[in-house]
């Protein structure tokens, strides 16, 4: 018997769109291909070499021999398959496209807002563009990466996305923050 499954975003109907864009903006990505890659024993260097960001996908440090790979080019269905082919026996790949939610926080106060819940030094010298880390934000664990001087990507498990957005709104209470789905 065939079933029709419908993909529903974890935050659909949960964030009231604020039409007016404010100084700081939290953008929720609707579709992003995400995969988790874990290098085989002793094969971290080989896997890392294959995962060098190439415009097609971007690998973010998650732990030793472990990366979160995101792609704007690939569809969720094809990213994991593509990575499996490229990595061969060097690593294990698990599709996470529907398991995680990607948020982009940008604006002049982005680092200050995050500092209200994340106990990691986010000064540009200590946490430069391109640096990624798994961090604790209040009580939620997430992957944080600095994508620009004033912008960060947050990748969180799907079922925690609502709580994280609520937390971020509280963290940004003394700053101007708008929240909406990304238009792309």
């Amino acid at each position, binding site marked *: 018997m065939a079933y029709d499954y419908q993909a529903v975003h974890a935050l659909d109907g949960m964030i009231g769109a604020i039409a007016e864009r404010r100084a700081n903006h939290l953008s929720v990505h609707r579709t992003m291909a995400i995969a988790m890659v874990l290098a085989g024993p002793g094969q971290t260097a080989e896997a890392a070499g294959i995962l060098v960001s190439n415009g097609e996908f971007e690998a973010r440090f998650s*732990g030793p021999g472990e990366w979160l790979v995101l792609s704007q080019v690939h569809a969720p269905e094809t990213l994991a398959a593509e990575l499996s082919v490229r990595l061969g026996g060097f690593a294990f790949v698990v599709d996470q496209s529907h398991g995680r939610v990607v948020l982009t926080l940008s604006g002049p106060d982005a680092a200050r807002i995050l500092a209200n819940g994340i106990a990691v030094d986010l000064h540009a010298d200590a946490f430069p563009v391109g640096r990624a880390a798994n961090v604790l934000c209040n009580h939620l664990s997430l992957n944080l990466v600095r994508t620009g001087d004033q912008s960060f990507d947050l990748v969180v498990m799907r079922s925690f996305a609502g709580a994280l957005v609520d937390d971020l709104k509280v963290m940004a209470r003394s700053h101007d923050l708008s929240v909406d789905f990304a238009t792309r």
Partner: protein
Amino acid sequence: MASLISCPHCGTRPKEEFFIRGDANPVRPAPMATDEAWNDYVHLRVNPRGRIREHWQHVAGCRRWLVVERDNFTHEVFAVTDAAKAGEGAR
């Protein structure tokens, strides 16, 4: 309680990011070791004051098991090593 732990993979992090399993010194006996040896390993712990070695897991970060050497009286942290590197079989 030492409040800042320098994870070898993630850098300096607050203790809230970690789960503490306890003493890192007991060595797992062979499967057919005596009941006394297993009883010691599972149940008996010394409770020293001063420098200790513990298993900590960086649950909110890299999720690796670490061996933290610290002083439970002065809160000083001496060393943080990945458990695999420390020659441990912790999982």
